[in-house]
């Protein structure tokens, strides 16, 4: 039994390892038979950087097979801290003492660490464990073991040896040989095993029998898949017909399979008759279009027109048909004819008031137009058309009820995308025009989130980060959304402002929610025997544990803590995460870093895909982060903060490799400069030279303005840390001399910019005044600008807001 000691804990937490070691030695004297304190002793030695001693003590203890789970967990952490590749601690002890309780601890530990092999081995061992009076549902344990075999076969298929891939499903089937699946979940496990064992026929007949008793969705899909794989077209056609007609399950995928099976079966005529006699629904009408792929006598254009006629006034129309068409298809005449038939010209000529249906048709019409011929984005006429459509349907904005959206916002997004395509560069003036148009649209359509996402991104490029932050808050983004969409605000946020709470909120999400809730939920899923959710639970846990955003946030937090001189947070909380990232990236394919960022919602309007010409231009300022960017940044931080690691020389090698290979389009000039300083310092060949410090940007209304000064401060602190924490002789005296002189120069620049902050304010005021004049003229007199119908008072209000926001950005500079 472990006896925890609060004093020792407190000493470890405060970093007083000497005291902790003394206290633990006293405890060992008091409890010489308690393995826990011996493990703790090894851990304290590891934390004191006495690596060799720590490993010796830990190995000695492990060789005595301690059976206290807490002791074992500490031993695992000691080996990790010492970067020592030990044997599997739990496995070794469980072999010696195969009791239910100990193996169950191993099972839970494997869930906590998302160790699939550990889960598989422990669940299998649980079926044979010495129960010692513990009463457990043996049937459940067998299904746990079986499903864990499925999990390993699926997740480790690229790393697991071929004989094991063959053996595991057989082992599972043998384990439940005489047990008949009693419910949908057990049937699911059985079917997955049959699937992996290649017993498709047996699987099909087993699923067929089960589905007679219970119409389970998951099993139905497995049955369909099984019949399709077997090429049992007759059976597939019959079962699809049953679900579609008899059970009235109007499901698109079932329709598609039905058509495919009918075609293979030479029964297309029957299929056509069924579709035509079916109630008119989106699925059945799209089934007609799908049929044209198989029945060449049917006209695609007619079916396309039929759909547009029936659903052209529904927002899903474009998205439904998009999968059947491609850019360049000649379908525009069909759309034009419908455009005329619906009397849209009368609306545009103000002869008729638009209805909601008219508006949605017009939105779909422009989406099709832009998608079928993407060259329209290069034409000023297209911008005019978008504005004209927006203006003609604007009266509908007055009918909006609370929380309702106005679909016409899409005209604005399309117009702005076109405006970006037609501009030479992403200038401050262009960005200001875009934000004013978006703000105007948002003021009338306040719940539309695409408009907000666009504004958040554009404001960050304008150094108006308080505006971005306010909009981000208004979206009430939380929990999992933080992982997927916070990048719209958080990209390089640490170098824009000191008011960067979202970085901390995001960090808390991982530590307080993801890390603590998910293992318990995976365990609960086992207990509830919801096998058809388990694989996804574990994948979800792995993807959050190894989230790309989590690690980009670590990089941001390091910068912000370094700028604000919080070294202890870097040492205690962030450095371990850097090491974890490095280890994860170097591991097998199960544990790769997972990029969960949602890059699609931002583009889920207009033609519903990224427009490269727009995206490239947006990326010229504060570019999106890439995986190699993050790797480069993390390795750089490891070079600075993990100097005693046995991997340090590997960090240097990889850093120099990445430094020369990461494309300049994913780095800012300041980041390139920062990296070049580190590269020059660590390059053993002394061929890499640091880039000369670049001049400060002139415009305050630009991301690069705050980014420049924040990076200057950050680099000066990096140098300070390196100079005071690197062992003598690590770098040549010339390099140290260069670094010292750079530090002096940086300090003088930082001192002078701190004195200049008031002057920056004056510069920004002049800049805003001048931009206001130009932008106002554009909205008033320009052929295109005037079409956006921006009220002068509204524009003035925007500039007042920008003036305050830039004031807040400049104020941040005084805090660093």
């Amino acid at each position: 039994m472990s006896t925890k000691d609060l004093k020792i804990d407190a000493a470890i937490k405060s970093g007083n390892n000497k005291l902790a070691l003394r206290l633990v030695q006293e405890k060992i004297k008091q409890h010489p038979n308690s393995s826990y304190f011996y493990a703790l002793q090894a851990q304290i030695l590891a934390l004191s950087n006495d690596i060799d001693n720590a490993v010796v003590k830990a190995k000695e203890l492990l060789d005595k097979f301690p059976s206290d789970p807490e002791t074992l967990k500490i031993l695992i952490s000691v080996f990790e801290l010492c970067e020592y590749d030990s044997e599997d601690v739990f496995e070794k002890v469980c072999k010696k003492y195969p009791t239910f309780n100990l193996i169950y601890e191993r099972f839970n530990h494997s869930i906590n660490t998302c160790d699939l092999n550990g889960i598989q081995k422990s669940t299998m061992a649980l079926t044979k464990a010495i129960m010692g009076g513990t009463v457990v549902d043996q049937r459940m344990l067998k299904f746990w073991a079986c499903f864990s075999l499925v999990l390993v076969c699926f997740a480790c298929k690229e790393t697991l040896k071929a004989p094991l891939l063959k053996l595991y499903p057989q082992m599972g089937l043998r384990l439940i040989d005489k047990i008949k699946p009693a419910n949908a979940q057990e049937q699911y496990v059985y079917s997955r095993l049959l699937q992996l064992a290649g017993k498709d026929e047996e699987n099909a007949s087993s699923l067929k029998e089960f589905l007679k008793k219970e119409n389970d969705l998951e099993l139905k899909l497995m049955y369909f898949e099984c019949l399709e794989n077997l090429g049992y077209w007759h059976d597939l056609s019959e079962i699809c017909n049953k679900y579609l007609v008899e059970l009235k399950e109007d499901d698109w995928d079932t329709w598609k399979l039905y058509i495919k099976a009918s075609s293979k079966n030479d029964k297309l005529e029957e299929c056509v008759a069924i579709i035509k006699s079916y109630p008119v629904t989106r699925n059945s009408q799209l089934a007609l279009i799908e049929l044209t792929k198989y029945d060449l006598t049917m006209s695609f254009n007619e079916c396309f027109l039929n759909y547009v006629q029936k659903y052209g006034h529904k927002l899903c129309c474009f998205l439904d048909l998009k999968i059947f068409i491609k850019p360049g298809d000649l379908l525009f005449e069909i759309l034009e004819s419908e455009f005329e038939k619906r009397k849209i010209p009368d609306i545009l000529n103000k002869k008729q008031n638009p209805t909601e249906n008219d508006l949605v048709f017009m939105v779909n019409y422009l989406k099709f137009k832009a998608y079928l011929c993407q060259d329209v984005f290069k034409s000023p006429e297209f911008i005019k058309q978008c504005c004209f459509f927006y203006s003609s349907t604007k009266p509908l904005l007055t009918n909006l009820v609370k929380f309702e959206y106005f679909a016409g916002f899409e005209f604005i997004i399309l117009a702005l995308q076109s405006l970006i395509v037609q501009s030479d560069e992403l200038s401050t003036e262009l960005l200001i025009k875009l934000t004013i148009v978006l703000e105007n649209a948002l003021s009338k359509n306040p719940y539309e989130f695409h408009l907000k996402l666009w504004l958040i991104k554009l404001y960050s490029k304008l150094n108006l980060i308080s505006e971005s932050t306010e909009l981000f808050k208004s979206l009430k983004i939380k929990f999992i959304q933080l992982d997927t969409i916070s990048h719209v605000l958080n990209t390089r946020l640490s170098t824009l402002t000191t008011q960067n709470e979202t970085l901390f909120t995001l960090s808390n999400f991982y530590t307080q929610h993801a890390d603590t809730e998910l293992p318990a939920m995976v365990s609960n899923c086992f207990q509830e025997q919801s096998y058809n959710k388990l694989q996804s639970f574990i994948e979800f846990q792995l993807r959050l544990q190894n989230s790309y955003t989590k690690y980009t946030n670590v990089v941001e937090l390091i910068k912000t803590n370094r700028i604000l001189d919080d070294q202890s947070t870097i040492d205690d909380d962030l450095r371990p995460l850097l090491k974890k990232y490095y280890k994860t990236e170097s591991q097998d394919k199960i544990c790769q870093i997972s990029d969960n960022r949602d890059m699609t919602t931002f583009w889920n309007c207009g033609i519903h895909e990224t427009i490269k010409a727009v995206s490239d231009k947006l990326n010229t300022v504060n570019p999106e982060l890439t995986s190699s960017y993050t790797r480069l940044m993390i390795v750089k931080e490891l070079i600075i903060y993990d100097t005693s690691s046995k991997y340090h020389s590997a960090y240097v090698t990889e850093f120099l490799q990445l430094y020369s290979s990461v494309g300049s389009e994913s780095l800012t000039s300041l980041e390139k400069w920062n990296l070049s300083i580190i590269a020059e310092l660590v390059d053993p060949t002394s061929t890499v030279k640091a880039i000369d410090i670049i001049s400060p940007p002139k415009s305050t209304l630009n991301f690069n303005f705050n980014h420049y000064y924040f990076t200057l401060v950050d680099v000066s602190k990096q140098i300070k840390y390196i100079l005071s924490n690197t062992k003598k002789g690590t770098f040549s005296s010339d390099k140290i001399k260069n670094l010292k002189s750079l530090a002096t120069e940086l300090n003088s620049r930082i001192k002078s910019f701190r004195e200049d902050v008031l002057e920056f304010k004056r510069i920004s005021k002049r800049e805003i005044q001048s931009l206001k004049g130009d932008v106002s003229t554009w909205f008033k007199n320009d052929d295109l600008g005037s079409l956006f119908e921006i009220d002068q008072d509204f524009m003035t209000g925007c500039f007042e807001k920008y003036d305050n926001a830039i004031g807040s950005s400049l104020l941040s500079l005084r805090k660093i």
Partner: protein
Amino acid sequence: MTSIRPFQATDLFTLNPINLDPLTEDFYLYFYMQYLSSWPSLFYKSVSPSNEPTGYMLAKTEGKRKEWHSHISAVTINPNYRRIGLASHLCTALEKVTANKPYDCYFVDLFVKANNKLAITMYEKLGYTVFRRVVGYYGGVDVIPDKKKIDDEIDAFDMRKSLPIDINGECTRKNGRNFKVLPNDVRF
């Protein structure tokens, strides 16, 4: 076009186009995970052909004897797929699932804000009727509910639809709007 698919935990990464809507709540992770593990067949999504979720149904079963029922905790749709009957489609699917084995529920119910006329009309079209008014259900911790003080802004209607097993319609009632209960009375 629509297919109904089982919801999986990893779908949570793809819900922004649905959950960024101001009326849709983004819940704690454990909330979703609890539904997935406890009622795996009652949490499902509608998907587009590219497998993107277009909406989802989050439901559970609860109650005893003739109160044994399925409860719709959330049903929500991506704005691009609204006004095409998708929410109704998801609700009908739940009725079909829970009316049959292994559930055999007596009715389906849901709570809706008393002032949400659009939703109430939709549910009425689907055959739901108001069973009772839950006074102060959406009032939060600061409001002490009082049956004498009805307020459409914070009151909920508990709406029910009998399933075939409730042959005599014993689980529903007429004039349910006038039958008032407090939030504590609706716990199962």
